[in-house]
């Protein structure tokens, strides 16, 4: 009986979410239809949908998503590949941390967009420039996540490993790396979301496709429906990557439950 109640409650909450979403969309549609706001300022959901269908027919919807997704993936993966070993090194060595601290403190607060001028000069209008913007936006937070994860490992596990005869390198491979995997993974989920933010900056300049380009281009042509569609697509893609990430987490971290 109790379990039935639990289950009911779970599904009731889901239904509530769905109803809330529908109500939200309907209200929005009504406001637009009733002319309370000009659709130039805020397009109705139906207009956004119509735009989506049109772009789908022109094959540009998928192309835009794919372009941004590729940039996000390359920049993000590069950031991950750099930050995991470097982060573990910085997390375990006070000396290395002291050496890198000033540089990290400088890089950490810089928005990805502030890298546009320099990367443009360094890499020109290539895809590399766009990857590098995503990379620069993702790498310092990723590094900080890894450092924190490394330091969050229960020191008693390291003691136990040393006590069982592990040398420093073995401690790193057998204890620190697997031990900080959960935090690294959940950190990377956040960083992936952040990378999507950066790709918009990256597509601000000299892009011909991508969701950021779509939003900016929609703006130029006063197509607010394209702008909103671009925003919806970003949310959507991030939600999907979140789900994928959760699946990865569940399979990699089977030992957690």
């Amino acid at each position, binding site marked *: 009986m109790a379990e039935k109640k639990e289950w009911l409650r779970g599904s009731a909450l889901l239904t509530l979410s769905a109803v809330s979403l529908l109500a939200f969309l309907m209200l929005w549609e009504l406001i637009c239809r009733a002319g309370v706001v000009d659709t130039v300022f805020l397009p109705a959901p139906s207009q956004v949908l119509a735009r989506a269908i049109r772009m789908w027919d022109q094959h540009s919807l998928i192309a835009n998503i794919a372009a941004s997704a590729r940039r996000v993936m390359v920049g993000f993966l590069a950031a991950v590949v750099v930050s995991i070993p470097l982060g573990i090194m910085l997390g375990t060595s006070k000396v290395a941390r002291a050496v890198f601290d000033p540089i990290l403190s400088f890089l950490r607060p810089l928005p990805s967009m502030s890298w546009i*001028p320099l990367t*443009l*000069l*360094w*890499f*020109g*209008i*290539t895809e590399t*420039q766009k990857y590098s913007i995503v990379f620069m936006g993702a790498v310092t937070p990723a590094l900080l996540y890894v450092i924190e994860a490394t330091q969050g490992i229960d020191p008693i596990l390291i003691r136990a490993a040393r006590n069982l005869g592990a040398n420093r390198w073995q401690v790193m491979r057998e204890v620190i790396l697997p031990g900080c995997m959960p935090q690294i993974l959940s950190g990377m989920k956040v960083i992936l979301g952040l990378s999507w933010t950066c790709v918009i900056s990256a597509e601000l*300049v*000299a892009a*011909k496709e991508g969701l950021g380009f779509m939003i900016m281009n929609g*703006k*130029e042509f*006063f197509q607010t429906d394209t702008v909103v569609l671009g925003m919806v697509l970003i949310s959507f893609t991030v939600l999907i990557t979140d789900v994928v990430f959760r699946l990865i987490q569940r399979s990699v971290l089977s030992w957690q439950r």
Partner: protein
Amino acid sequence: AAPTVINYGGSAWLGHYSAYIAMKTGMMGKYGIDLRWQAFATSSSRMAAVMAGNVDIAGTGVVSALALMASGAKQFQMIATPNNFGKAEGMLVRDGVKSLNELKGKKIGVTYASSSHVLLLDVLAQAGIDPDKDVSIINLPSTELLTAYRANQIDAAVAWTPTFNRIRALPGTRILLDDSAFSLYKSYKMSPGPDVLLVRSVFGKENPAAVKGFLQAIFEANAFMTQKPEEAAKILMELTSLTMEEQLSTIKQTEWFSQADQKALMENPGNFVIGLQKLAEMLLKLKQIDFVPQVRQWVNATYL
């Protein structure tokens, strides 16, 4: 032989009409050139692409080029000026406004670091209006200008084509002044941001024939625009999204230089270069750059 690939940096601005026409009508192909068009929203990103080596030849407003010269970059050379416009840039106001003085206390939208910005600062100086106190200048990217003007968020806009045409087309709008009001225009026929063609130094050195061919094609296109403006307009509409009427008037208002004009402008006596030098000095005065470059050092007329 296989055609030489030239990566060209352009936009919808009229300074790029020549290259666009030459590309679309096969004039480039005739000179053994495969022109690859890259669109940029701003001159500065186009220039950055030149610096990074992604673009071989670019057309640009000269303000951006002067700024780059001021910072000492030697990676490019100035090879020609394709046109002279005066009516494609200017200040647009609502019908009631008759003079600059009536804009005191009002909001004027302009894109910072553009030729329009220079024009605005210059005409304000001529009228004795303090740009910081008497008016409020709003920094807006060119596309935002139209939105802001339409939504009554600004009282005047200084813009160039095609935004210029779009705003002008709005009902109740008139042109208060255009580039002919620019102080250097009167003495040197120098607009605040004349168009120039730049070549990446390394590319020019390695492919002198291709650069020469490119310029040939440009001047051929210029002749085409002068002689057959209607045909040219049709081709250009897909670049600019202007209406036929607007497109045609833009072409007709502009003076399209021939090859013969070039030598005189660029080298001997080089009025254009002298004008540029004056412009650089003015930019310093208007606090836009912090060093006056010797413009002549960047001019290379050997490809003409």
